[in-house]
């Protein structure tokens, strides 16, 4: 087992494309770190640098006590699960899983024992002698996982391993990956652009944008206190509402003619300063005595919840509430909000303007 630490890691591709612009973070031994961000933000590049598939332009990557910048992928004691699974098509499931052990000269009976053990954990014993093309997407995914765990590496690397599965299977595999990682206690780095996967899997969430880390922390903390407008709108579904507002005084901002109480507000904000106000759809609570009045344009029915699209103080908002709370023909809603759940962001930089 080992911890992983990155210090100021940069990657410049040929043609001066700077894909990763100085990233530092540590993952404790046994931790599950999820890298999340929009397409092209450098997540895969970062992961591939940890794997050794991409050279590190500058900075340092450490696995356990070892700086691995110059270490071959095979010698880093890692295993990787690829988006397209990268199973060897001409080998049976058994051979796919045994390949890495064979290359390392593991004795035959030891290989057999470990492959069977891994196959048992993943419930793939019954197709050990099938070729990958005779498997369903979900089964292939399991084999790819099996190939990773059979080697008992120090670090698991996942590059969007679930994105080729259908929605239902994705949820199922997500839970299984989490359980497996807990059970094995192997330090893991997981790349995804799916924020639900990111929230549910990680115990350390790293939000990236444009080759940089926007914010990292425990997922709940990132959710409750997004460090920037980018993180606020990227994490959470439906995304956080952002409205243009004006500072009214300490602890108060206005959106149009609607005044909202704020508890987390930077001290240097002065009345009249333009500001962006972030409100999570589920933080605006529908209440008969709510002081905020929202005009409802239309309602989306999601089953367990409803989404109300409408305007508040001239700004477009989406509100999420449990179904059946409000008659569906309502034209206005009375809302209340906890002052602690009003987020403020700088108009120019998008940085959080809290205390």
């Amino acid at each position, binding site marked *: 087992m080992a911890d992983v630490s990155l210090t100021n890691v940069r990657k410049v591709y*040929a043609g001066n494309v700077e894909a990763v612009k100085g990233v530092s973070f540590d993952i404790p031994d046994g931790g599950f770190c999820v890298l999340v961000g929009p397409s092209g933000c450098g997540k895969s590049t970062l992961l591939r640098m940890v*794997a*050794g*598939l991409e050279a590190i332009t500058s900075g340092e990557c450490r696995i356990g006590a070892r700086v691995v910048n110059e270490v*071959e*992928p*095979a010698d880093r004691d*890692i*295993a*990787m699960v*690829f*988006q*397209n699974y*990268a199973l*060897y*098509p*001409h*080998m049976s499931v058994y051979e796919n899983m045994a*390949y*890495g052990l064979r*290359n*390392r000269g593991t004795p035959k009976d030891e290989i057999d024992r470990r492959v069977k053990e891994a196959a048992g954990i993943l419930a793939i014993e019954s197709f050990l002698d099938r*070729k990958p093309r005779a498997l369903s997407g979900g089964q292939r995914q399991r084999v790819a996982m099996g*190939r990773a765990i059979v*080697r008992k590496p120090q670090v698991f690397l996942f590059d969007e391993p679930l994105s080729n599965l259908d929605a239902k299977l994705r949820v199922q595999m997500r839970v299984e990956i989490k359980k497996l990682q807990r059970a094995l206690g192997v330090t893991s780095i997981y790349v995804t652009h799916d924020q639900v996967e990111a929230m549910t899997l990680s115990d350390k969430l790293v939000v990236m944008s444009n080759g940089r880390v926007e914010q990292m922390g425990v997922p709940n903390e990132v959710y409750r206190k997004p460090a920037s407008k980018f993180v606020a709108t990227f994490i959470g579904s439906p995304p956080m509402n952002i409205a243009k507002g004006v500072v009214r005084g300490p602890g108060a901002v206005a959106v149009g003619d609607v005044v909202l109480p704020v508890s987390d507000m930077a001290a240097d904000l002065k009345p009249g300063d333009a500001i962006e106000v972030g409100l999570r759809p589920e933080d605006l609570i529908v209440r008969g005595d709510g002081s905020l009045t929202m005009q409802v344009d239309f309602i989306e029915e999601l089953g367990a919840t409803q989404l109300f699209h409408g305007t508040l103080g001239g700004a477009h908002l989406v509100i999420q509430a449990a179904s059946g709370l409000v008659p569906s023909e309502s034209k206005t809603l009375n809302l209340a909000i906890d002052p602690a759940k009003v987020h403020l962001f700088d108009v120019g930089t998008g940085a959080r303007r809290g205390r």
Partner: protein
Amino acid sequence: MERKVVFPGMLLPYALLAPQILIILVFFYVPAGQALWMSTLLQDPLGLSVQFVGLENFQTVLSDPAYRQTIARTMFFSVAVTVCAMVPAVLLALMADRVVRGAMPYKTILIIPYAIAPAVAGALWLFLFNPSVGVVSYYMGRLGLDWNPKIDGSHAMWLIIIASAWKQIAYNFVFFLAGLQSIPKSLIEAAQIDGASPRRRFWTIIFPLLSPTTFFLIVVNFVYAFFETFGVIHAATQGGPGKSTEIMIYKVWYDGFIAQDLGRSAAQSVILMAIVVALTVVQFRFVERKVHY
């Protein structure tokens, strides 16, 4: 997904196929039929009388020790050409596959030999290996190697093998490169993480995945060595010295047009035709059932 085009009426599809069918008729079926017919005839040396002899020509040809030698020689030549054309091609393709920037010029340069006429290729290598003026011969001489394809039959054989293979390397290269590029990069990376050395990656991952391409090329190269090397041989050695570089296709031409023994020449060409049909059948069988993984 295949898309089916539906034509109204029957005329248009036939009209569209007609040129191709006509070409095959005129340039394949008619000569093939003629060869078959001629292989059953015996002409007297002066060409004054013709006599139907049935399968006698085949009997004479196949029982002729010289012809059997030619078959053995052709086999050796074909295997050698196939190996000499495929091994460098796969090595070049492996190298070209790794070039990321400026890959186009390399590929173009490597493909050019394919566009060179067989006779020109033959002449080119003849010059290079010419015992008195050839550059290669000069250096071989300096190294103390005795080299004279005009006198030594096995030297001549290697000369035509190299000249024939050289042209075919380009063709094989294109297919191997396409084959390599269709192997997902992540497979190689997975093998890298799985601790396979480059050599082991080649033999356990790349080579098996290239096997459909390899098999296809073995057949194509064999057919090439059998049938399309006439120009090279004619320009370089004319089947000599002695008969040491006379392969089956060359003997067909020689016996027919130089020795004027049309019946036996036709019988030989029917034998060649049977070989190409057999090779094609093998190829189709495998393409259908695929040397697949």
